[in-house]
């Protein structure tokens, strides 16, 4: 093997994404070997469908960590904006483009995100506390003030949810599955986020602020504006996820949203996003989400009871995090031993 590829392999091998990828590979091969049902067209499409909403949430969690710290409010922002958009359609009897429904939800989400952003940026409060607080408030508004219950979605929304991108049927088992249009939305959002983070100064600012706040300020980044922006955008993203989730299930289910934040955050951390800020990739978000989706979706194929899934998810998170911690320690150890060699030489 020539030196260059060996070197680039080494570089790759220290990335947490690489390990998540290996785990995904091993896990899927294991499930395939045991059940023969993993690499089937309907299972793959099923996985992609289940990933759609968590993938969008993952961007929220990712942006939060990169710039500031945890954002746990996205599921409830998704729920409340999804509800408001649904109500808008029901009350006005609007039956036009689904885009308008999304826009209504996004507007609501942006407002809620802006509340988070305002408190966090202006008063410099920890984002975890603030978003926990607003989560509770949004939940209170949804279930208490609006008394939201289970709602069958209006026709126009259901129609959008039933349009499919790909439809497959497994020739052997006869099981069918379809990939909804919402998957395209998730892909689009990843592309937009990628372009924003890598090719705009504001996007680099998100990393700079997360890396060192004081340095960012001295360099000329507007730290408060960037933080406010991130949490506001998170609100908008969450709203999109909320509508996607509803149209996929054809019902608005107000109590189904809460609790998603933990597994999404776990996926993002697993994918190598650093809790302390400034470090992490979108690839990592996708891989982390994929891994946890496989665990929740496909372990059932090898007969693992549903209760054990949580156990396995927990174990994966701990092992996954441990790997990156060991890596950092090794990296330091590696440097020390290198220095020692120089001394002796």
């Amino acid at each position, binding site marked *: 093997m020539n030196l260059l590829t060996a070197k680039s392999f080494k570089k790759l091998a220290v990335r947490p994404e690489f390990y998540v990828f290996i785990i995904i590979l091993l896990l899927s091969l294991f499930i395939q070997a045991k059940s023969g049902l993993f690499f089937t067209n309907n299972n793959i499409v099923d996985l992609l469908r289940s990933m759609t909403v968590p993938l969008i949430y993952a961007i929220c969690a990712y942006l939060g960590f990169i710039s500031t710290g945890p954002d746990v409010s996205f599921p409830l922002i998704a729920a409340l904006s999804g509800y408001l958009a649904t109500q808008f359609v029901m009350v006005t009897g609007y039956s036009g483009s689904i885009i308008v429904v999304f826009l209504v939800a996004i507007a609501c989400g942006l407002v809620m995100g802006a509340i988070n952003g305002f408190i966090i940026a202006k008063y410099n409060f920890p984002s975890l506390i603030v978003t926990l607080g607003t989560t509770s408030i949004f939940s209170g508004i949804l279930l208490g003030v609006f008394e939201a219950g289970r709602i069958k979605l209006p026709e126009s929304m259901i129609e959008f949810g039933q349009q499919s991108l790909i439809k497959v049927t497994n020739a052997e088992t006869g099981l069918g599955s379809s990939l909804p249009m919402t998957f395209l939305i998730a892909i689009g959002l990843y592309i937009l986020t990628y372009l924003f983070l890598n090719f705009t100064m504001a996007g680099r600012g998100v990393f700079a602020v997360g890396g060192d706040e004081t340095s960012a300020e001295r360099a000329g980044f507007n730290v408060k504006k960037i933080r406010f922006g991130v949490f506001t955008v998170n609100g908008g993203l969450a709203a999109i996820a909320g509508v996607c989730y509803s149209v996929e299930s054809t019902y608005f289910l107000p109590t189904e949203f809460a609790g998603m934040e933990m597994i999404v955050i776990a996926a993002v951390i697993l994918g190598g996003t650093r809790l302390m800020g400034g470090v992490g990739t979108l690839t990592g978000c996708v891989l982390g989400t994929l891994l946890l989706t496989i665990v929740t979706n496909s372990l059932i194929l090898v007969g693992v009871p549903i209760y054990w899934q949580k156990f396995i998810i927990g174990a994966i998170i701990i092992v996954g995090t441990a790997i990156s911690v060991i890596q950092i320690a090794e990296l330091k150890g590696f440097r020390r031993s290198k220095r020692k060699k120089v*001394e002796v030489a």
Partner: protein
Amino acid sequence: MSENMISVKGIHKYFGGVHALKGVELQIKKGEVHCLAGENGCGKSTIIKVISGVHKPDGGEIEVNGVKVDHMTPSESIKQGIQIIYQDFSVFPNLTVIENLAFNKVLASKKKFVNRKEFRRIAEEAIKKINFDVDLDALVETLPVADKQLIAISRALLDNAKLIIMDEPTTALTKKEVKRMFEIINKLKDEGVTILFVSHKLEEVFEICDTVTIFRNGENVISCPVSEMDEKKFSFHMTGRHFAEVTEGKKRNLGETVLETKQLSARGFNDVSFTLRKGEILGITGQLGSGRTELSLALFGLLRPDEGEILIEDQKVNIPNPTKAQELGIALVPEDRLTEGLFLPQSIKRNIAITRLDELSNKLGVVNSELLDDESAKWVRDIGVATKNDEFPVSTLSGGNQQKVLLARWIASNPKVLILNGPTVGVDIGAKYDIHNLLRKLASAGMGIIIESDDATEIVNTCDRVLVMQKGQITAEVKEEDLNVKTLANYV
């Protein structure tokens, strides 16, 4: 045109009720390396912040290039060509060298999008100015401290800096790195850049600076060419105290051997054999990475030796952990007191007493607070910690006084062997003098003391015998009669 790059006159600054700057003057000539010295809290940092526009002065005036500047703001000061290299270097550890170098300039030009080619061009231009050789695509967190500083310097030069203010730039650097930095400073000087060098390290001031200004308690006490300054004058102006030449405790009677190592090896050093006698102060010196830090860790049970023996009072001992080390009468005052030694937010009292809690508590393990108060008060008095109240957190003390608290804690446990790693790093002259005296006093009382230090003057002034370490081995032993700064420099 004025011959002064910057001139501040009669600057006053209040923080609440504290009069931090009492009408200070500072004239820096174009193209000179000007040193600003003074003990902690003398107003050095405040005047820097006034010059850079971070603090608004409560009186006085600032002239840049002979032109009065009414309202100095951070952006105005950058426009005037004033750049500060902060102690923390203001870098982004999570980003590449390229981005660290290019951000300021790109942001200043109000560009909204990232142009990678332009980023790289800016970065290359920046490192070329000081012939800085670095992997531009590396993440800054993977680089050594010295490189982070060079990033900060080259970034400052990009903005056409005319005056670079360096706030204690050598604190975290090894000797070699300091030398390299001085070369860069000289190069900048040749190119006509003016430098304000903030430091309280005597040797550095004499080596690199043309002019020196000393602040004390918010007033400037002297400003003169370095050639008119000497060590004694420097210490006097810094502290306002005259230091007598130390003779007391210099000649001590050495007792029997208290600590001995035989062919001791561990990660970082190998085959180290030496003895330490009661009442002796043994210096261990060597570059960073010479293995001296590891040696002290091994003696304190923080690093497991691979081979060899440690003997305490001729008894072979095994030191698996610090608790055992303390039982055997070994104490270690670590190099980085802030992260390894002190509980900064806790009170001075608690910090002093922590190693002795067992003795200060009753059978049930409940601490007797009266005993604790007495103990703490005694040490604060004996060792001269400058504080009004020992209930204050340690973080409120100056570096020198924090070090005294740490010393008090270990001395309180009355060890047989006291190991100090860089005992006066970041400590001002007055406190340094006090600490050295204290160590001599302890040695006279029969304690065996090991001082690990880079500071040649410190070693010469306090030690009876010095071991020089290089590449993990003892390469020389210098006896007291041969001990002076010059011979030591030859060995290191």
